[in-house]
């Protein structure tokens, strides 16, 4: 039993949902109690998806446990098939259903549906979300390529991009950017999967010359299997940062013995010049703490150290599956990697490292905020803000542009704070001055107080006012005072407060 206040990854069936939700023609029947349907909102709220995830939950209750949950499961599968007519059906159990051992795979197969049924066995008490995604993708690919008939491959190099999912950190834009880069380099993209793919697309995966493991947490297992099964080589170099992107292109060039030098001279990122411009000098050696999924943590550490000139003082991940890679990367910076899924450990490590910048997940953003350290988010778990409306990839040369902004702007704000601090006693920059970006109108705190107040608050009304949430309290105070002035009330009582509230809501 492990005491957990918060978790970086969900249970493995959430990973399976990320695969099912991003694909076409796939439906997932999940044997699960009511309540597990909360997972839908991750997709509809955080990622703002405009359709429900293609998931049917059996939502069994206590009264079903006494009866026959297996029959309930079969009924759910049959009804889901009738209603949604998927081309492939995934079936599995969440943590509770795993305990009642109904064998969803066997039950679903017994229905003899005219479509492939892929049973998922995801050990909920042992593994987590990324494992679930990886395993589900692997099982699906295996099922879909089962009847693969080899074709004559094209003469132009072709690849599959493997790994992007629903709820993935910047996956939407990374795919666009990497696809653009590959096509410009002369490599055609056969299939992108799982995001946007149909089971019939998965069946075509072996047509390509090689695979790109865009997100190893999701796609490495599948790529290794495809290599073994079909002799398809894979590139497991993540194109994050200028160096990462160049290495990615070089790895592909090497595979086909092409010279990439001309291409790489023509294609570049503004990061290269921006980082050399003297304005960036102040970034030199700034201590930075990095935590996230293994791939993003390792790649961002490289960008921070080699491309922005920061000093990496902390590097860690919650992805235990990739601890080895993160430990190896940490050695490059003469530090010990932090492998943990307890955010309190991360918080303690950040405090000890005392960095000038934290690059992490949304949780590290909050830790940094508490500690007063500038921060940027570079990894899942995702938050609604990690799905920006604008194009904002992390990968490729455009991704490097995004990274320059993302990784330096918080520092500039920090610099601004620093300068304000230096000039604190200056007549223009005194401690009560508002934030500079609000201009000189930001300091009329006094101006407002200066208007003669005709009404005073009695103690009870004042206490009541304090119970109003802070973000509307100011408005409530102003409205009440305006109302009091207007009605020639000199002492604001509780009744005045509510009279004013009713008056202004009319």
């Amino acid at each position: 039993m492990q005491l957990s206040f918060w978790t970086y990854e969900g249970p493995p069936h959430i990973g399976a949902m990320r695969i099912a939700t991003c694909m076409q023609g796939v439906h997932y029947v999940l044997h699960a109690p009511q309540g597990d349907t909360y997972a839908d909102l991750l997709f509809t709220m955080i990622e703002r998806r405009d359709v429900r995830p293609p998931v049917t939950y059996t939502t069994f209750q206590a009264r079903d446990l006494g009866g026959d949950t297996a029959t309930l499961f079969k009924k759910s599968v049959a009804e889901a098939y009738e209603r949604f007519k998927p081309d492939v059906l995934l079936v599995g159990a969440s943590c509770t259903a795993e305990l009642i051992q109904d064998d969803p795979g066997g039950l679903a197969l017994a229905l003899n549906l005219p479509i492939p049924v892929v049973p998922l066995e995801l050990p909920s008490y042992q593994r987590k979300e990324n494992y679930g995604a990886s395993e589900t993708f692997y099982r699906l690919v295996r099922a879909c390529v089962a009847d693969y008939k080899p074709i004559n491959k094209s003469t132009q190099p072709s690849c599959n991009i493997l790994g992007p999912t629903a709820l993935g950190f910047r996956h939407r834009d990374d795919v666009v950017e990497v696809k653009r880069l590959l096509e410009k380099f002369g490599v055609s993209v056969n299939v992108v999967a799982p995001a946007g793919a149909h089971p019939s697309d998965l069946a075509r995966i072996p047509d390509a010359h090689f695979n790109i493991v865009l997100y190893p947490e999701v796609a490495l297992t599948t790529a290794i299997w495809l290599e073994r099964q079909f002799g398809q080589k894979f590139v497991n170099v993540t194109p994050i940062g200028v160096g990462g992107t160049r290495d990615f292109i070089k790895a592909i060039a090497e595979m086909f013995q092409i010279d990439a030098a001309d291409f790489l001279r023509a294609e570049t990122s503004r990061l290269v010049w921006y980082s050399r411009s003297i304005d960036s000098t102040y970034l030199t050696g700034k201590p930075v703490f990095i935590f996230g999924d293994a791939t993003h943590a390792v790649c961002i550490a490289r960008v921070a150290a080699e491309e922005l000139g920061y000093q990496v003082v902390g590097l860690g991940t919650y992805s235990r599956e990739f601890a080895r890679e993160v430990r190896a990367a940490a050695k490059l910076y003469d530090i010990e990697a932090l492998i943990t899924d307890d955010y309190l450990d991360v918080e303690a490590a950040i405090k000890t490292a005392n960095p000038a910048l934290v690059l992490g997940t949304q949780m590290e953003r909050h830790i940094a905020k508490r500690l007063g350290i500038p921060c940027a988010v570079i990894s899942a778990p995702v938050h609604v803000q990690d799905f920006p409306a604008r194009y904002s990839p992390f990968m490729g040369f455009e991704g490097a542009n995004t990274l320059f902004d993302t990784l330096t702007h918080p520092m500039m704000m920090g610099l601004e704070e620093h300068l304000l601090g230096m000039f604190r006693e200056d007549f223009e920059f005194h401690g009560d001055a508002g934030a500079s970006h609000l201009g000189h109108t930001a300091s009329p705190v006094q101006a407002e107080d200066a208007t003669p107040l005709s009404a005073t608050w009695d103690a009870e009304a004042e206490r009541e006012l304090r119970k109003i949430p802070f973000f509307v309290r100011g408005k409530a105070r102003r409205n009440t005072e305006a109302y009091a002035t207007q009605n020639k009330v000199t002492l604001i009582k509780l009744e005045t407060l509510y009279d004013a509230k009713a008056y202004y809501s009319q």
Partner: protein
Amino acid sequence: MNELSPLSVPVTAGCSDAPVLRERGQREVFCGLTGIVWLHRRIQDAFFLVVGSRTCAHLLQSAAGVMIFAEPRFATAIIDERDLAGLADANDELDQVVSKLIERRPEIKLLFLVGSCPSEVIKLDLSRAALRLNQRFAAENRRDLRVLSYSGSGIETTFTEGEDACLASLVPTLPAPPSTLPNLMVVGTVAEIVEDQFLRLFAALGIDNVGFLPPRRAAEMPSVGPNTKFLLVQPFLAETTAALERRGAVRIAAPFPLGVEGTTAWFTAAARAFGISAQHCANVLETPAARARDSLARHRVTLAGRKIFFFPDSQLEIPIARYLSRELGMWLSEVGTPFLHRELMAEELELLPAGTFLSEGQDVDRQLDRCRDNMPDIVVCGMGLANPLEAEGYTTKWSIELVFTPVQGFEQAADLAELFARPLRRRAMLKV
């Protein structure tokens, strides 16, 4: 258009004997663990320890949103393989987790061990664990710390029923009243600002001996005995009601304090139960009721004549539907509720327009079909359904806000209307 819609049926005798569509398919609702999100805000020195799986932890942080980023007063003891394989005695493991927790948070006065689906399926007895821990803390001179247990599991509870289970677990521990004077207990979580408004109105009515369950602090538990009369402020408290009745307390039957009419009836029922004259009661309620009525006018413009469809969620659906139809002139397309407690809901059903289409339980895909057939102007549903319905062109109000926002009482009547009016106004404003 549905045959049972109030349009085609004359408004007569309410819904006391109305037929109810009972569904037992997929339920798109939270489990009872979710109640922790507001219960921990209400009881400020309580800690909620879920004994469950990673799914439970993930649910809580997904539902709690930003609250998780303060160090929260809730956590999960995540059961792992060793606990299941019997390699570790789950009880020893739990005791260790609790020790670690109490060491970290010594200010905690009330610890709830909250059962989950997995803990129930493996039959981990949390009531015995609570007993054992209480004995241990007593021996360690920590009598100020009490451990209780309840189940918030999805196989036992739906969303707000978690609060019911939590409050029911508190009832046997409530003190007996110090005297035989009649006292009033208000049952169900309310925001502090609502509590204070209620206290002032009770005082004006002449009822001074008022306690709230749950209270703000563990040391402020209300007393209960045969001279206790209690009023439910939330409709989902069936188990708590039964537990209070076992302690001899008597429920004051009333509609729920939502809207001007509901709030007036709620206070009037209390006044009657305490022998306060109807005239005095009317005098006290007149000013706030009139003020609240005035503040509804603006929202009536937006809401009157609009058709609303409720997916089942919090059990607040029937009282809210009653309020929206009677005070704001909305039409009820379907009112879904996860459970219908006819006894607790009797006064509400009487007020609901006759012919209202009522459904209990859920089969979400079939209900979505009905919703689309009905083409409502606004749909009240959970967060999993809201954006997909918006994308189909429906205006929605996500229901969880109804349990997080102070909506009870006179001063909040307009706020409750605003929750429904705002999405409609917004849709009218957008030109993209």
